[in-house]
């Protein structure tokens, strides 16, 4: 019974995923096709060619066919896993994306975990001591950081830690003159610290605010009053009645933040010149590398979908209350 339900659930999600991917693929393709970017000109980069040669190139790229045919070709190639060739890197888009994305995933995963843990802890401390100076400090910090542009926060951190204190290098994934495969672990790690710090500091604000507000709500409820009258107090009270109630929605919220995480990574990578997917996306957008940009859009859509799916799963399969309801049906 239960297995059937899970299979049905994932089947439903898979269908949704496929529909969404096709929609995103067509949508982004049409948008870029409507743009004034001419792939042939972008490929030539201003080189002088005769009209006949240009037509051969158009034939080769398949740009001189009507839009529906182009979309059909694009989807057909997509199903076969062929995303085309990047015009900047002169390599298959798939390889470029895999290389850059793996660098970004390290950055995003660490900061995702850190922001979740620190944000939750700060929220609990603030909510427990409502009205104290800790609470006020957390609140002011969260308001300020949510209104600050994340790239500006990155620049401030860069100024303080790299320029003034000189603890960390100013940028680049690996030192100049060293191939990325030759870099030692420490060299990678020191260059990861500041971008991770920035992303975590920015990302912990929503989760801390959410946790704080929820905890205050729980602590003012009747059952906490009853628990207090039974003699529970202090940290045990918060642990038994507060955290159990708010941990799950907080985890769900953290999974739902994948989209902002990606957006933050794009900006932060630009500030710290970290060679990840975000920097590649910006380069592709600025230099009219249409195939690479489309590929990155698709990958990011998959990334966001996975985040939403995990949030859904954490909601339906971990929450004991919902599970109980389903069994009772």
């Amino acid at each position, binding site marked *: 019974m239960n297995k059937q339900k899970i299979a049905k659930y994932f089947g439903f999600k898979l269908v949704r995923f496929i529909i*969404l991917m096709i*929609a*995103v693929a067509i*949508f*982004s393709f049409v*948008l*870029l096709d*409507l*743009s*004034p*970017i001419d792939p042939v000109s972008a490929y030539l980069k201003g080189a002088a060619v005769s009209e006949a040669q240009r037509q051969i190139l158009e034939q080769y790229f398949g740009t001189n066919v009507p839009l529906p045919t182009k979309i059909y070709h694009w989807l057909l190639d997509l199903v076969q896993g062929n995303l085309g060739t990047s015009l900047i890197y002169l390599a298959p888009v798939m390889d470029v994306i895999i290389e850059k994305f793996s660098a970004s995933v390290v950055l995003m995963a660490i900061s995702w975990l850190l922001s979740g843990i620190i944000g939750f802890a700060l929220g609990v401390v603030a909510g427990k001591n409502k009205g104290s100076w800790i609470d006020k400090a957390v609140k002011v910090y969260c*308001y*300020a950081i949510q*209104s*600050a*542009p*994340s*790239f*500006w926060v990155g*620049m*401030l951190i*860069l*100024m303080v830690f*790299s*320029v*003034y204190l000189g603890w960390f290098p*100013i940028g680049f994934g690996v030192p100049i003159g060293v191939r990325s495969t030759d870099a030692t672990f420490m060299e990678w790690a020191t260059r990861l610290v500041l971008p991770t710090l920035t992303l975590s500091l920015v990302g912990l604000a929503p989760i801390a605010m959410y946790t704080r507000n929820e905890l205050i709500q729980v602590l003012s409820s009747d059952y906490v009053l009853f628990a207090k009258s039974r003699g529970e107090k202090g940290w045990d009270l918060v642990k038994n009645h507060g955290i159990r109630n708010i941990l799950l929605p907080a985890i769900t919220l953290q999974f739902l933040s994948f*989209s*902002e995480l*990606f*957006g933050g990574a*794009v*900006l932060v990578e*630009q*500030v710290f010149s970290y060679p990840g997917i975000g920097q590649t*996306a*910006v380069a592709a*957008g*600025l230099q009219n590398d249409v195939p690479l*940009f489309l590929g*990155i*859009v698709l990958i*990011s*859509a998959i*990334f*966001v*979908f996975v985040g939403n799916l995990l949030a859904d799963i954490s909601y339906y399969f971990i929450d004991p209350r919902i599970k109980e309801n389903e069994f009772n049906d």
Partner: protein
Amino acid sequence: MIKKKSNDNGPWVLYHANLRTKTLVIIGLSALVIISIFISGYFVRDIPTSFISANQMPSLEHLFGTDWMGRDMFQRTIAGLGLSLMVGFIASAVSTCISILLGLFSSFNKFADETVAGIIDLFGSIPHILLIILVSIMFGGGVFGVVMGVGLTHWTPLARVLRSEVKEIRTKEYISLAENLGRTKVWIAIKHILPLIVSQIIVGVILMFPHAIMHEAAITFLGFGLPPHEPAIGVILSESMNYLSSGYWWLAFYPGLSLLIVVLLFDLIGENVEKLLNPETAQE
């Protein structure tokens, strides 16, 4: 409000005012600051360059210091904020129109509702910053590209709120009554549904603003759109990136801080307007 003037015997005139007056004063003051930035940003053109006073620390003469061409950073920041605010205005207007149209369209029937939900999902499935880049490339970049990119992508939260609101309103009896009387869907949407969601729209627009401004700054920081000689905040910040290692911290610090303050002011206005419009808190 009128009573307030008769008992201003305390150190703070506003101290005795009630919450509604205080809220109104907060809204008024914040709006005044923003409008004055906007207007003065319009008048600051042709900032004089003088290479004698290049790269100066912040002082009384140059509040935010000067950049490598000796231009006063305070003037540049104000001009940049004015530009950002303008982009924010236009983008919010575009986004609001789209979300109202989609929200009302979702009231027509179940199919329309599902369509709107699908479009919202589609826009929400791509990270926001990539979506803005995508749309601004589609419009060919430049100022127009940035405005459209920011404007066409910020309607999703408001549209989502309006859709759920409309869904609730549609179940009311007077809607089905009007349907039975033979009124068209468009007539019902405009006469019966639109007036009920106006307060949601106002709050949504004000809260949309700071997002639009921040994304505009982000997108120009990345190098899309505005040309380097335009004094947009994003352009100023990306330019100051080149001088970070020289230790010219004021080039980046103050423009970002002023952007932060403007965004906070908008949040403040939004929260207080919501407090006034929400019947639960308006009478406190």
